[in-house]
């Protein structure tokens, strides 16, 4: 029997290169990179999903099918703090009922309260795994995730103001392809430094006080450009400085914790209201206090924790007189509808800036 696994993970934002790095550098398995998500991904995912499950379930199911089509024999699925924690079991059942043959490693099965127990899942990926090698790859892979976040932040803050159209995008693409092919920490660091340098030299024409919009919301949809229909790019193209705190770096790797973030928002909420609620409420107030021109709250249809945050955001909006655009994405959302709402929002915040 061939024990050499061909592993895949559903597409998530721009992080699959880091997952690939951890799997290939840390274990003996290889990683199958399925194509980026397209309309078809969403269509097949939706076709086989329950009706009113949240949208990332549908797109990730579609992405799993595309991974199996691309030759993966093992699907890896994550645990999560909301419905995400139950995605794996139901997705596996749906794929089995469809007749696909594969192995499924569901991290939700390894949740015991001790991080150590996740190592059992790693052992399943590769029974002969060498722990020091895996941990090093994990550390470096997470670093790659952080690099991706840093460059993404840099990109959306500035690409709307470049003098020559397309320069930022070119640098961004080069960086991402270097991350996808990196086989060592050295290559990764070099790619990152090069991207910083290139982006630093691109001439920009930014007004002294550009329009600033803060994007916040549900962990997956807010980060994944396919799922949010390239929201950040559209805004940047209108000439907006786009900020988004929510990413893997800030929420997972360097999270200061509910206790510390809650201090600034205690008057609004006493408890952690959901997996990303404290962060989003804190972030909204932070942006409001910094004098941002508007906020956009992004979520997939039916996202329970983000629906619950909305009454709090409405109060922040009233207190700081900051406009908030609430966007809900489902499998039917079209760019045309999105653009109409974005253009109206843009016109409004631009006029407010002139008047105020």
């Amino acid at each position, binding site marked *: 029997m061939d024990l050499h696994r061909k592993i895949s993970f559903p597409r998530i934002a721009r992080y699959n290169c880091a997952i690939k790095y951890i799997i290939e550098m840390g274990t003996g398995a290889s990683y199958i990179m399925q194509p980026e998500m397209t309309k078809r991904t969403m269509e097949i995912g939706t076709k086989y999903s329950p009706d*009113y499950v949240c949208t990332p379930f549908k797109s990730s199911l579609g992405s799993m099918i595309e991974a199996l089509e691309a030759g993966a024999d093992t699907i890896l699925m994550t645990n999560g703090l909301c419905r995400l924690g139950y995605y794996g*079991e139901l997705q596996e059942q749906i794929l089995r009922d469809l007749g696909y043959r594969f192995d499924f490693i569901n991290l939700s099965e390894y949740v015991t309260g001790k991080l150590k127990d996740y190592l059992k899942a790693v052992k399943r990926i590769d029974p002969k795994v060498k722990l020091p090698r895996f941990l090093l790859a994990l550390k470096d892979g997470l670093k790659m995730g952080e690099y991706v976040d840093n460059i993404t932040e840099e990109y959306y803050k500035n690409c709307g103001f470049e003098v020559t159209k397309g320069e930022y995008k070119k640098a961004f693409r080069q960086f991402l392809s270097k991350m996808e092919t990196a086989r060592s920490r050295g290559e990764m660091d070099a790619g990152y430094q090069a991207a910083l340098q290139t982006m630093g030299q691109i001439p920009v024409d930014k007004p002294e006080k550009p329009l600033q919009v803060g994007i916040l919301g549900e962990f997956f949809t807010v980060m994944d450009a396919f799922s949010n229909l390239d929201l950040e790019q559209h805004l940047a193209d209108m000439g907006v400085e786009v900020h988004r705190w929510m990413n893997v770096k800030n929420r997972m790797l360097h999270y200061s914790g509910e206790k510390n973030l809650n201090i600034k928002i205690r008057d609004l909420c*006493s*408890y952690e209201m*959901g997996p990303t609620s404290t962060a989003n409420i804190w972030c909204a107030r932070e942006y409001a206090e910094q004098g941002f021109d508007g906020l956009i709250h992004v979520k997939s249809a039916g996202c329970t924790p983000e629906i619950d945050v909305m009454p709090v955001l409405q109060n922040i909006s009233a207190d700081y007189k900051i406009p908030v655009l609430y966007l809900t994405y489902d499998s039917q959302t079209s760019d045309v509808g999105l653009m109409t709402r974005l253009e109206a929002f843009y016109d409004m915040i631009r006029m407010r800036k002139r008047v105020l």
Partner: protein
Amino acid sequence: MDKPITIGLPRAMLYYRYKTLWHSFFEELGFSVIESAPTSKLTLEEGAALAIDEACLSLKIFLGHVKALIGKCDYILIPRISNFGINHEMCCRFEALYDLTRNVFRESGQKFLTYNADMIQKKSEWAAFMGLGQFFGFTVKAANKAYRTAKKAEQRQQKAEQKKQELLYRSEKIKILIAAHSYVICDAYIGKPVIEFLKGSDVVPIRADVIDPEDGAKAGKELSPTCKWQINREILGSIVQNRDKTDGIILLSAFPCGPDSMVNEIIARRVKDLPILNLVMDGQNGTAGVETRLESFIDIIRFKEGKL
């Protein structure tokens, strides 16, 4: 003597799970406890006007009940119940409920009372109730005594309910297990009409959520190993334990319930030996549609058993 402090209980969400515990605890300490009236069309309409459009029907009903209590009591009790340990979790909505409601009714001047049960963060129900006692100036001893009394009353009530339930399984009539959260099945506006219709059709409806929480959660693992929601695990457990004793299952949920949207799909895919009806209540007017579906479901069961 001063007028006693009044605690208001919205008759929605976890009210049905904890009503005995709450009543007994506060009454033991000398408070007066009031409840909002059973859900009506107006409750839902008022709640829906206050809620975010996409919120679940149960939350809309809950906010309607809170509104009905505003200004009628000193405090409205809304706990934050997050989990009872790893993989014994509640839907995120119960983590948010207190803060969410407080933000919705910010301008009302109403005072809300809360407690936090979160075993993963080592915050037990007992400690939470001691906190409630202290908030009102009671000693730990007095609060503890009230809590123990309340806990006993709660257990008595649970045992009595479970016993009554056992008797239902002995009935000769067609028995249908209703898999639903207590706040759906017990709600006067959305669950009761279903129960009444079944009873009127000479069918015995049996609640899946009436089960010892620990036993239920344990048994539920058999049907869905990674399901982490306590209430859904209890319902799954009830299906595991009772599927041989029933003639069909109705999955009754409130649109668009997060946990149910997935767990009910698992049930439908894994329980193959029983007829299953998936009934999603969206609070629309009129019961004709629901009745038609219930009628045909009962016909299917009767037909299958050669009784039609």
